[in-house]
């Protein structure tokens, strides 16, 4: 990048220039290994080249990033205040039984975290340590930016250029401990940005549940630009839970990319309950026979919220299975997008791919754009997809009312019932019960908001 060119000559939009300037300004403060500085440089160069996506791109047809570009987000200063233990217990009752790493605006808060001290080899480290040349450096160097390339992805490029911290998770071979791994990302401040980065390596034969929970404790405009890279090695079984429940002024862009080796199983549970604009990019590469991917999602929103889910399952080899169930609930003037791509490569015979996207629209002005996209280049496969857009079932509504349940309560019950399936799919009863509570109260808020706007 040429530092001599004045910003006045730069034809790039203001939003793009902002990040280029911040990158240049931060250059002298960054102290990391050479390979990392090279990677960051490549990433920012990619971003400079492509800039923020426009709606002319097929991938971004229904989602405008203009609200994100308009704000000159800054990395927060050092006074990042951690949640109190009481707040923590309230945010996530399940965290008390879990290994947990608490991040505040993307930085690890060690006092609130409970990390394994080399307990049988389970590793949950601060990525910052590894990036600063710490003990996990070799591991990070070998895996970072492999699963989530940034060449054509402005947000991943930004994350790679600016990432400060995140989690480095390595689940050792044969690990079977039931205790879940919980990563909490709390955002604070106003017009602040964070670029959490998570690297998950599940070694052969391991089994684990990892929750990534994005929360805001108060109001204020924030932008979380998260990237998660996952490698599931042979026979590994991973349940990855993404919970997005930031405040109504916040933006959340998330890119999760997983590569699955032979006979591995990855279940991805994405529960989106908050945020003004949320974009989820989920990619699973079924790279060896016998791999199984199960994508389950629930997105819910009212007022003028915008929730965009893009999934891509790549059946690269024969004998792999993928399942997708995405449920949307939209009220007010909310807009939802579901684009589910499945690619079956020419050699990937005996692929088995199912995709389903039922949506519930609670208001006339709510909108969903659903676009299943099957690209099948093999002939001996089992693939199907379906999407529905509907309202609450009238018969069911009458049934509940005929038993004395008030109409508003009946609507809420039915909406919760529609949503229940996704939370119920979480592993461990304590987790699914907790997720169910989160979803139930989000449904209650949505129903109440709609009542308020009708009168």
């Amino acid at each position: 990048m040429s530092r001599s060119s004045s910003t006045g000559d730069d034809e790039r939009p203001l939003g793009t220039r902002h990040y280029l300037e911040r990158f240049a300004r931060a250059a002298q403060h960054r102290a990391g290994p050479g390979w990392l500085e090279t990677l960051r440089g490549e990433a920012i160069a990619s971003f400079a080249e492509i800039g923020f996506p426009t709606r002319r791109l097929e991938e971004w047809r229904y989602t405008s990033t203009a609200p994100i570009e308009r704000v000159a987000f800054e990395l927060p200063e050092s006074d990042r205040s951690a949640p109190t233990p009481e707040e923590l217990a309230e945010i996530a009752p399940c965290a008390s039984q879990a290994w947990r790493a608490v991040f505040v605006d993307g930085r690890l808060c060690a006092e609130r975290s409970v990390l394994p001290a080399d307990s049988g080899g389970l590793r949950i480290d601060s990525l910052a340590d590894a990036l600063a040349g710490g003990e996990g450096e070799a591991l990070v160097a070998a895996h970072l930016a492999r699963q989530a390339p940034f060449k054509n992805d402005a947000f991943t490029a930004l994350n790679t250029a600016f990432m400060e911290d995140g989690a480095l998770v390595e689940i050792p071979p044969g690990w079977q401990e039931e205790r879940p791994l919980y990563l909490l990302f709390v955002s604070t401040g106003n017009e602040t940005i964070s670029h959490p980065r998570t690297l998950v390596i599940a070694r052969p034969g391991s089994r684990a549940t990892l929750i990534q929970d994005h929360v805001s404790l108060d109001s204020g405009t924030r932008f979380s630009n998260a990237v998660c890279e996952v490698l599931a090695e042979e026979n590994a079984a991973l349940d990855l839970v993404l919970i997005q429940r930031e405040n109504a002024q916040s933006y959340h862009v998330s890119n999760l990319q997983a590569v699955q080796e032979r006979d591995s199983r990855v279940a991805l549970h994405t529960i989106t309950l908050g945020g003004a604009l949320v974009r989820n990019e989920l990619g699973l590469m079924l790279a060896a026979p016998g791999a199984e991917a199960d994508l389950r999602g629930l997105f819910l929103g009212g007022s003028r919220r915008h929730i965009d889910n893009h999934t891509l399952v790549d059946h690269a080899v024969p004998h792999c299975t993928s399942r997708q169930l995405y449920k949307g609930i939209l009220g007010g003037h909310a807009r939802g997008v579901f684009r589910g791509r499945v690619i079956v490569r020419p050699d990937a015979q005996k692929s088995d791919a199912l995709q389903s996207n039922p949506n519930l629209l609670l208001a006339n002005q709510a909108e969903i754009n659903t676009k299943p996209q099957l690209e099948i280049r093999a002939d001996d496969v089992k693939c199907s997809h379906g999407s529905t857009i509907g309202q609450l079932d009238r018969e069911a509504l009458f049934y509940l009312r005929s038993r004395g349940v008030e109409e508003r309560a009946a609507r809420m019950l039915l909406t919760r019932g529609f949503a229940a399936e996704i939370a119920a799919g979480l592993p461990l009863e304590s987790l699914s019960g907790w997720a169910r509570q989160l979803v139930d109260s989000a449904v209650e808020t949505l129903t109440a908001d709609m009542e308020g706007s009708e009168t």
Partner: protein
Amino acid sequence: MLEIKQLHANAGDTPIIRGIDLSIKAGEIHAIMGPNGSGKSTLSNVLAGKPGYEVTSGEILFKGRDLSEMEPEVRAREGIFLAFQYPVEIPGVNNSYFLKASLNAIREHRGEPTLDAMDFLALAKEKMSHVEMPSDLMNRSINEGFSGGEKKRNEVLQMLLLEPALCILDETDSGLDIDALRVVAGGVNLLRSPERSMLIITHYQRLLDYIVPDYVHVLADGRIVRSGGKELALELDQKGYGWIEEQARTEGHE
């Protein structure tokens, strides 16, 4: 208890009920029989207040009050209960949670204290034993994956819990084998009381062997064309509905 006067009603835009008069006093059991399409289910839906069913003229008084302006949930709280011909399956909504919400809504309306989870479960368990309902059905989604017989038991269980003033049974016998029929009827009979009325809608006489009515009415073409005692049901069982429909048609053209 229930006074229906010159009731005309539509299902959607189609006139179905064409002038019904019916008076049910407290403690009485009335049966309404009739061929398919005679308006039996429309009548029960109109009484329960199902959206899409409209009273075009005449009136329905329940405990002296006009029903037409009451929302379905208000009717339920006032004591009207419709046992559905086809109970609705509701995935994701827990049966026990629903029954407790329903019971507490009605108890609150009656000025009775609401029940907590423990008290509710104890009460539900007792009532379930009356309809021989397996306890795991309480923890499933409402009617989801229930057999036909289990769905009807669930309806009668709700009736036993809610103790309505007027029970309307819409073809509760349909799809039941003889054992299930006996159990369901047994549950209904537990509710017989001098303060409670019942309207039993059925196509067949069979159910009335178990729940013996005080009066039987025959509905044809949206009107009651004949009323009598329980022996009328037997006569219909032997002779079928043809002769009555024929009569109704002739009278209709007079």
